[in-house]
């Protein structure tokens, strides 16, 4: 029989074997727990007590959940702002990091460094640094005379929003820069040399070589940035605690509160399932970007 196996079938089996370990991990540690989560979403599941089946009650209660509904608008605004800022800044920084000038290695390292600090620790650092009394973000401009009064960075919804985005950019941009850099470095230099011989301008090189080659990487970063921001949570929990006055409660923060402050795991599971479905739909729109058709 094995001899009868077509070349194509054999290749398919080999391919399946290559992905088998990943498939196993995903099955045991993701698909099964996800199934459990879906099961929980149909239960009245007090985290501390025993669960009882309650049908779709957890789902039908979502339209009445103000915290969650308010979080939708905020999270979308945050995702839009973060993605725009992150991409804009990372293009500039990667141009510096990819430069052949002296010092670019140092710059590259300095932009990446904040990424190595854990989110919780980095956020706590910022929390104290942005304090009006002891925070260095205020003390240095005050000492230099740039500002007269300390700025309470977390006191209004707008300030808290932009402070969080500044933190997130500072903390995560290194990741984006490194991935972009890796993509840039993988473009064969011969292409640029050939283009230069043909008299192509810098912009033309960008348009016809760099961007097409970077497409899958850009798409990957875009998807990571969008899903990451839609699921953003830690930075709000620690930096703003959802405040001031509940203006920075993100979707996952609302889910988290339902599960671990209200101890209502059933509702939290239902919210998670809804979020997952929404994100899958959003990603279904983005996924074609990942395919590498027109390179």
């Amino acid at each position: 029989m094995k001899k009868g196996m077509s070349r194509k079938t054999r290749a398919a089996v080999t391919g399946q074997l290559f992905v088998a370990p990943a498939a196993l991990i995903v099955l045991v540690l993701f698909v099964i727990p996800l199934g459990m989560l879906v099961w929980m979403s149909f239960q009245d599941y007090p985290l501390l007590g025993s669960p009882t089946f309650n049908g779709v009650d957890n789902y039908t209660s979502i339209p009445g959940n103000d915290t969650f509904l308010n979080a939708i608008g905020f999270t979308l605004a945050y995702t839009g702002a973060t993605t725009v800022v992150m991409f804009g800044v990372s293009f500039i920084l990667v141009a510096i990091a990819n430069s052949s000038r002296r010092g670019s290695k140092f710059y590259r390292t300095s932009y990446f460094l904040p990424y190595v600090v854990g989110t919780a620790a980095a956020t706590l650092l910022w929390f104290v640094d942005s304090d009006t009394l002891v925070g260095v973000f205020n003390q240095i401009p005050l000492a230099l005379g740039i500002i007269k009064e300390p700025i309470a960075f977390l006191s209004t919804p707008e300030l808290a929003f932009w402070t969080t985005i500044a933190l997130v950019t500072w903390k995560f941009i290194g990741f984006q820069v490194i991935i972009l850099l890796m993509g840039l470095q993988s473009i064969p230099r011969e292409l640029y040399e050939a283009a230069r011989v043909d008299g192509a301008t810098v912009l033309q090189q960008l348009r016809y070589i760099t961007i097409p080659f970077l497409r899958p990487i850009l798409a990957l970063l875009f998807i990571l940035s969008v899903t990451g921001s839609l699921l953003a949570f830690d930075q709000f929990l620690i930096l703003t605690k959802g405040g001031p006055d509940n203006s920075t409660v993100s979707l996952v923060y609302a889910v988290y509160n339902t599960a671990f402050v209200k101890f209502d795991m059933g509702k939290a599971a239902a919210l998670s399932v809804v979020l997952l479905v929404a994100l899958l739909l959003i990603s279904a729109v983005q996924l074609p970007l990942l395919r590498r058709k027109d390179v």
Partner: protein
Amino acid sequence: MPRNLLRRAVLPALATTALLLAVSACSGGQTADDGPTTVTLWVASPTEAFSKALVDDYNATHDNQVELTAIPDDGFLQKVGSAAGAKSLPDILVSDVVYMPNYTSQGVLLDITDRIKDLPFADALAPSHIAAGTWDGKEYGVPHKLASSVFFYNKDLFKQAGLDPEKPPANFDEILADARAIHAISPNIAGFDFGGNCGGCSVFTQLPYMWANGEKMLTDQGTKADFDNKTTREVFGLYKSLWDEGLTPSNANTQDGSTWADAFVAGNVGMMAQGSAMVGKLQAKATFDWGVARLMSPDGSGTSTFVGGDSAAITATSKHPDAAWDFLQWSLEDHAQIDIVAKNGDLPDRTDLSDNQYTGADPRTKFIVDGVADGQTPFAVPFGELFNDPNGPWIAMVRGAVFGDNPDAAIKDGQAKIQAGLDEAAG
């Protein structure tokens, strides 16, 4: 050749599978033997040092052993919630006393009514803690670490401001007047400080003003809220004046608790309602003389305090309830309470021990301990989500009434939302 290749391709996949299986097979359940028992205890990190002193002494003198695990405070609720969901709670759970109704109402804890009643000093155990650990007439918890809210003031700053350092303010008018006098010393010196974006801090320090005026705030087993009253308006009104006149540090409205003691300890604040735990910090770091007073009603006619801290309980799933109780009982006896708890500067859990040689040595700690007798611990199943949670209705009401333009609307709104939360929890 293809088969050879196939085998090579199979190998990594098989190796991973085998690793997974081997790993999952090698850790089975442990069997309990009949020798000395080890019981597990979880405590949130801020209380760790306190509990560890007790556990170390117990382990050194007993065959049974207590294994203490400090859970990061930030993740305590998640940890306990997940462990309860997976039936893997420890034998002893030490939890913030205000969360006790959460656990007792869900059957997470073991009924220890009879064990508590058999204690010779049962009646002396901090009464508000016992009440907080009682559900449907059954008692589930004993006090572990007591904390109470106290009015602190900086005597040095009082002197500099020309005030009598031995005469702390006795009512709200005097607080405001003294705060003005102290702030007049220098723009960098604040008259008063508070955690204006910290639900836990504010409920801990502001409820006593209201209780002191005879208000109940939460009644009927924590199912009825009464915040829409005159006293609430006076309390928030005082804080609003302090904030609006710039008598507080500029970070008071963003203070989420993480640095709320720092300005006072540094000597830059004249007065503050704070937790008894600040005594330790002041003794270690303060370079000025400080005094304590009770939290008073607006007109000064009554005083009260919030008796907080941690309760200890045995979990319903514990396999060693007797060994667990042995530790809890020992921790409340004279030796532990006097030679460990009081000696370390903490408040004893029993009202009959307030005269011990250690607590009595500093009149200020004696003063604090004596205050516990007429203190209260608020009771409500969803207390954490309504009052401590930074997104809850309590802190929204405080912020609306203190920093907002329309305190009256904020209080009415807060009352409605707190009542709605209580109703939802009652089902």
